[in-house]
């Protein structure tokens, strides 16, 4: 099996070159931390809010359909039950929901008539998204106040979803950072192939009856091992910083491994196309840095123009981030992230097919 021989050789070249190996493992880590501290946080301008109207009075309908709908920063969706709304938080369709209790309309009427009354709203939000949650509380508070047209504050009963454990800021940031770490594997993935191009060792191997796919698979496999080690290091590091995985860790691992395969595949495509090591390196940085920024690894990409988002969504990383975030912070299962998972699988297969195609074309120039 030629690809196994190439794999074994690349692995030996990698671990015997201690400095390069250190660089390979430490580099994404340093980058991750550096960018993590620089960009950690969340900017978002539009929030999906679910409404569960148990009152069904004129006043409650007016509150939701007129007051909340007209708030610029909210997208309001109606749900029949609290369970339904909670399921949609997990799917990532909304970031919070309001339960309007029975008797809401009557209480509002009492207050309008200057009689004693208590207005109560239950707001349930995804606490993993801390800044979003606090923004929603203040938006709903002010909407309610202006709708009721009175100075008495409405008690918003915040009801954070603490499904299994305490959720921290790190839970939100870590999945993005991990995906970033996997994204910047692009420049390192093609390193050995590009070096072999430079020394013409690759050309020498091409004088044997080895097929293009065997080269691509052979060169990729050693990087897959490095990628798996990296994923574990990243998760461990996230855990040390206080990240808890609510969902299925194996599902998260599958997402991360697929993401790393995509990076390796892109690295292979670039290495197959590039004429020299310098060219390949420049090309991969030029490609991966902007992609990192628009893929939502550091902040929400909702404020980006739609064409940029469409471009970003055509690459695996924005899908990886949202799927990983859903699993880690909301405990989403395969039914919620299925489409992202499928996208990653298709992308992985496609990028390796494309890589092999370019390699074959380059093999006999």
């Amino acid at each position: 099996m030629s690809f196994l021989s190439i794999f074994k050789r690349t692995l030996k070249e990698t671990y015997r070159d201690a400095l390069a190996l250190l660089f390979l493992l430490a580099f994404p880590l340093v980058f991750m931390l550096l960018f993590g501290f620089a960009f950690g946080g969340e900017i978002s301008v539009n929030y999906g809010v679910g409404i569960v109207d148990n009152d069904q009075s004129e006043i409650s309908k007016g509150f939701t359909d007129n007051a909340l709908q007209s708030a610029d920063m909210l997208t309001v969706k109606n749900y029949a039950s609290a369970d339904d709304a909670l399921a949609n938080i997990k799917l990532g369709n909304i970031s919070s929901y309001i339960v309007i209790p029975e008797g809401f309309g009557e209480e509002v009427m009492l207050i309008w008539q200057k009689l004693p009354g208590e207005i109560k709203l239950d707001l349930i939000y995804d606490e993993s998204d801390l800044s979003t949650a606090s923004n929603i509380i203040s938006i709903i508070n002010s909407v309610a106040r202006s709708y009721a047209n009175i100075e008495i504050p409405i008690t918003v009963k915040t009801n954070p979803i603490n499904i299994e454990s305490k959720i921290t800021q790190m839970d939100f940031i870590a999945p993005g950072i991990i995906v970033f770490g996997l994204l910047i594997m692009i420049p390192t993935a093609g390193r050995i192939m590009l070096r072999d191009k430079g020394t013409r060792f690759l050309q020498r191997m091409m004088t044997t009856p080895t097929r293009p796919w065997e080269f691509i698979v052979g060169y990729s496999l050693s990087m897959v091992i490095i990628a798996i080690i990296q994923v574990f290091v990243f998760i461990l590091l996230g855990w040390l910083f206080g990240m808890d995985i609510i969902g299925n860790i194996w599902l998260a691992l599958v997402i991360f491994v697929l993401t790393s395969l995509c990076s390796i595949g892109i690295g292979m495509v670039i290495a197959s196309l590039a004429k020299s090591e310098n060219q390949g390196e420049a090309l991969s940085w030029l490609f991966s840095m902007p992609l990192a920024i628009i893929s939502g690894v550091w902040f929400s990409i909702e404020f980006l123009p739609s064409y940029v988002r469409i471009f970003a969504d055509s690459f695996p990383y924005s899908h990886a981030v949202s799927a990983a975030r859903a699993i880690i912070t909301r405990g989403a299962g395969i039914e919620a992230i299925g489409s992202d998972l499928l996208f990653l699988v298709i992308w992985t297969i496609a990028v390796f097919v494309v890589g092999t195609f370019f390699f074959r074309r380059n093999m006999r120039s």
Partner: protein
Amino acid sequence: MITETPLFEAKPDDSFAIQTFNLTRIFGKVVAVDNINLNVKKGELFAFLGPNGAGKTTSISMLCCLLKPSSGTALVMGHDINKSPYQVKSVIGVSPQDTTLSDFLTPIENLELFGNLHRLPPKQVKERARELVETMGLEDRANDQVRRFSGGMKRRLNIAMALINDPPLIILDEPTLGLDPQSRRVVWKYIARLKKEKTVLLTTHYLEEADFLADRIGIIDGGKIVALGTALDLKTDMIDTRTIVVKAWNLAQKTIAQLQEKYEDVQVSNGTMTITDKQVDFKEIVDYLHNSGAIIRSAHIKEPTLDDVFINITGKELRE
């Protein structure tokens, strides 16, 4: 001039290891290899001799299926380089111009890698790798990483790697480039040993190398084969002049002038006279000088070298 791909079907001839049919490669506007038609017999050591940039490596790259011909084709051990590149690759062993080894691997590991890439059975790979390390005199360093090797050792391993699959055709691109004369002799010895069993195609820009090793030489310049034959054929056929070198005291100006009138080229410097012409009679010249009062210290006929052949054909020196 470049012609179209020939319409004739390349017909395999069993007695040839390599047959090229109007083999041509163009890079942009540069014609690197220009309609080469060449037959290399099985069991022959054939040398491509030419200066840097003559088209030697380009020709070899096409024969190894690393480069597609712009037009024309070649048969390597009967396999068409355009139609069946993988069959071609399985019957050749290539030692490229640059020493290309995997630096962090030992010589055994380097050899085994190529044995595996040639899809040899694992047991055979191990045996051949061991054998070749011994043949090349590297057994003491068999388990050291190649990056710690000297240039000469790397060169020897570079050649050994072309032999791991025991191919019927071995292609050596500048096998002694950059080696000191002593190491070069060692490599020559190995190549000479190969020549008895294998077909060897060698490129070089060292005249002595081609002269010493090759059964036949093809002189290549500007992408064309400008002369073809054994070293002796080339020297006798291509050089139609002879040169006589005489060292003498007391050479009179008058004598020199008279000789310059008679012969095409007469040069004198520091008491050494070099006379070149199509017809020079050694005895006549020596007698003439003697009678004119010159005291002859030595006189000999200079054998033509391949360099002379090269200058004669291309009008320039091989080493620039």
